[in-house]
């Protein structure tokens, strides 16, 4: 069953309420006339397929667990924030703080992204076909960021864990980020992700990880000490 929700007729709150009901039925849902409005598709906990025919504003496809979201347009700030699982893809550009605090699933951007892409990421995969801005992977904690274009200044600044792969140029490395050689396994994994998204390119990647000097990685928490 396919349903169409018109954002010119329904408020965003009503759309999100309808999405919550419809997603439980496994329905396929189209959203039209989104016109870059904010908070479209939030808090969905079921597997369902949603296509937005147009741009979305801030916090779209955020705090969700399971949906498959396709946005045919641009996205504003914090697309896919705190995504637990599922897939989010946007055909054009995404704003700043893309996939902020994402924990799982995948976020794909067909165009370019703004500043702080993958900020505080805690899992999952973020794939950007174009460029990313300032502070890509800032304070990243887990997961993978793959950038097919260029990444801006301060890539991987203050990252704890996780990996950033950049095919193009890097503006500069952030504090406590370092470049290391990507292994064959790393590249196979990245290329698999590209293939999953129908991308034929198999470029070489710069791999950026934490240099692990900024934080006290070796000091133990009280509970950990008792376990040693």
């Amino acid at each position: 069953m396919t349903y169409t929700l018109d954002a010119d007729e329904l408020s965003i709150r009503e759309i999100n309420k309808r999405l919550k009901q419809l997603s439980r039925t496994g329905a396929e849902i189209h959203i039209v006339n989104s016109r870059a409005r904010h908070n479209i598709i939030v808090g969905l906990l079921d597997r369902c397929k949603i296509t937005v025919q147009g741009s979305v504003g801030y916090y779209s496809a955020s705090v969700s667990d399971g949906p498959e979201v396709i946005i045919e347009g641009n996205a504003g700030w914090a697309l896919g924030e705190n995504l637990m699982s599922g897939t989010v893809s946007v055909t054009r550009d995404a704003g700043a703080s893309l996939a902020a605090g994402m924990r799982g699933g995948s976020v794909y951007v067909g165009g370019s992204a703004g500043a702080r892409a993958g900020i505080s990421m805690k899992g999952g995969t973020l794939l950007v076909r174009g460029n990313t801005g300032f502070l890509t992977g800032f304070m990243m904690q887990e997961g993978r960021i793959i950038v097919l274009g260029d990444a801006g200044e301060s890539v991987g600044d203050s990252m704890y864990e996780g990996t950033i792969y950049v095919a193009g140029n890097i503006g500069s490395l952030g504090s406590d980020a370092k470049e290391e050689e990507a292994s064959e396994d790393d590249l196979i994994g990245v290329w698999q992700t590209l293939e999953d998204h129908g991308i034929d390119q198999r470029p070489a990647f710069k791999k950026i990880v934490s240099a692990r000097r900024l934080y006290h990685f070796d000091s133990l928490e009280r509970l950990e000490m008792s376990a040693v």
Partner: protein
Amino acid sequence: MCGISGIMYKKSSDRDSAPIGSELVKMLDALAHRGRDSTGITIAGEKTAEDYIVRTWTNAEQASDVMAKAEEAIIRTGAVVASSTYLNGFGRLTVNYEGKVSDLASALVNTKGIELHSIGESSEIIKDVGTSTSIDTIHQISRFRGTHGIGHVRMATESKIDINHAHPFWAYPFPDVTVVHNGQLTNYHKLKHMYEDQGHRFQTGNDSEIIAVYLADKLANGDTLDSALQQSLNDLDGTFTYLVSTRNGLGYAKDQWAAKPLVAMETDDIIALASEEIALHSIFDTVADRVEPQESEVMTWSV
């Protein structure tokens, strides 16, 4: 949080006649969630037959007495008041004047009870407390036409909420140079003291006003608008995305942290800038390739 927007028509056939007022009102209405304390716009391009358009405001109880004193002060500078309209303490005067704009400006600000919002050859600031729709009803902004303009909806963070502290801010005493700002400037007091020592005048306690004064100072020293904006990236500390409107120009500058949003769209005919894409959808049926300017980015256009 605040919302900013800007628009410029590039084609000479559209000059002076584009519906800048109504389009800025629509864009600011779409950004109303970013600030409801006050709203203001600069309309530029509709050149009057007179030399300058002067915009003033007074909250004095005897507004008409204060306005009369202001007109006397203008006349004492050698200027001729060609027209004057007053509404709820707001004054719009057109004057013919061949002297220095700084003399005209100081004659006005030295008139007790008068607040000077702008002097421009073809630009004027209209600002008030309330949302864009409410100030459009009062000030009939939608009827203003021109080549370009900037607008602002304010959610106050740094100084009080009143008409004077609403954006845009005029770059006293530079005709037509006005600024709207989203962000907070952390070296405001330091810069303010420095500029006051140099004789610059501040009309308010709003941190954003420093950008207008800063640009006025740079332009006075012969810098181009582009160069002034570039230098501001280093000299202004804090978070900012700001827009500037001049007699013939429009520009933006975004801080080194990319902390405050902006989207920019340019077609063959038009340039549109806004905090969020939602504002572009309020005036365009289709939003073509819009870009999000990155950190430390500056851009200027001119007609």
